[in-house]
């Protein structure tokens, strides 16, 4: 992967190393605050500590899918590889975050709701639908088709998938009586100070993680397409030469090419 082609000669650069450094400091800090400094919840006790990861990954899965949608729209508009690669990279991270939301939510649900999963809960189900839609998106990106066709199809699926974000977000309000899930607890302002701070810290750390992963994934994707792009220059020469080999051989073609 680390080759000397293209505008980046590795997937890391000064700015990503800086982001990585932030993570190196931020993650231990988050762990300290989440597990030691922040207080227990009155009703949920220790389980509340999942808040600091569950909510940020949920929010950043929205953001990741949102970026995918923007990338998809810009791709359809500009037809540039840059936007396509961005959309793909972001979707991959979004799926990861969305999966984490589901997993942390389930783990959280076990002690608080006494169940891993609740089918009647609109937020859970809509989140799952969103997750599956983007799994489909990633599956579509594996299909052996030309890059253009694949990008076009994926862009349309990516845009349609984004319709889920508002649904997931608003679901708890639209179907108030069919959810166990928390409504916006942050806007209620009933969180304690340290809890609030830890939550912010969690959001920041997850946010940096997102950026860091996005940049790296983007560069890997870019290098891949870059390799294709430069690879084909070489492939063209190889193929043209192959034609010459054939010309002198016994192709039985009466005409012999004299060019080049």
């Amino acid at each position, binding site marked *: 992967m680390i080759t000397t082609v293209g505008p980046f000669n590795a997937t890391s650069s000064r700015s990503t190393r800086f982001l990585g450094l932030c993570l190196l400091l931020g993650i231990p800090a988050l762990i300290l605050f989440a597990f030691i400094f922040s207080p227990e919840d009155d009703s949920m006790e220790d389980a509340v500590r999942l808040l600091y990861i569950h909510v940020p990954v949920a929010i950043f899965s929205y953001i990741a899918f949102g970026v995918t949608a923007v990338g998809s729209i810009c791709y359809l508009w500009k037809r540039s590889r840059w936007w396509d690669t961005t959309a793909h990279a972001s979707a991959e991270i979004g799926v990861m975050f969305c999966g984490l939301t589901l997993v942390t939510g389930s783990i959280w649900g076990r002690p608080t709701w006494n169940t891993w999963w609740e089918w009647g809960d609109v937020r859970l189900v809509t989140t799952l639908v969103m997750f599956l*839609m983007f799994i489909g998106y990633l*599956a579509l990106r594996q*299909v052996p088709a030309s890059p253009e066709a694949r990008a076009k199809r994926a862009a349309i699926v990516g845009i349609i998938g984004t319709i889920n974000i508002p649904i997931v977000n608003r679901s708890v309000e639209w179907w108030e009586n069919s959810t166990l899930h928390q409504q916006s607890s942050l806007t209620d302002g009933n969180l304690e100070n340290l809890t609030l701070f830890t939550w912010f810290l969690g959001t920041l750390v997850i946010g940096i993680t997102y950026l860091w992963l996005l940049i790296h994934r983007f560069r890997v994707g870019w290098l891949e397409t870059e390799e294709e792009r430069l690879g084909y220059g070489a492939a063209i020469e190889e193929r043209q030469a192959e034609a010459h080999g054939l010309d002198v051989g016994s192709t039985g073609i009466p005409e012999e090419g004299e060019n080049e």
Partner: protein
Amino acid sequence: MLADSWLIARKDLQVEIRSRIIINQIAPYTLLIMVLFGFALDANTQTLRDTAPGLYWVAILLVALLAIQRGVQIEDADAARDRMLLTPVSSSSIFLGKSLALFVQLLVLEVLLFFVMMVLFDTSVEDPLLVCLSAFVATVGIATSGTLYGVIASGVGVRETLLPILLLPVLAPVAIGATRTFGDAFGRVNADGWAWFGLLVVFAVVYTVLGMFSYGQLLEEE
């Protein structure tokens, strides 16, 4: 444009009638799915009656997948899709034509399956208008989104299995909405059927418009 759509739809229906796949094969399949559910739910009549609308629409979705795949396969088998591109027919017409054919086939199946459900699951209808209208609109939604995703999932040897995973999440709103309207119309649940009906209408309109505009882009093979 509509004339072209009609020609394409008629051709698809002609192929279907010729191969008698719906009558001989898909219709029994729907029946079987319902029976399987019966097994799975272990013949608890009360449960069956309550969940009839949901099972009905799950069965319809599974059957719709088959019908969509047939529709794509008809065009792919001998590269008729390419040939279609080399005619003056607009891609919106192709989209509408393929959707229309799918719509008609699904409607036939739905009517059949509906009577099966009435008998097997012992359901009774309180609001026939809501049932008819919502089935109609839900089917428009399934047909248009199915046609669109059918072509997205088509191409080099991936169709059969890629389609379900792309399409089923998309159809989740239809499945839920139609289940609720049916539940309301059967007097089983206290959902507001007409509100869900609105959702179905929105879905159908969105995918019809989306399909008409983006189908052409997607038809390109490479």
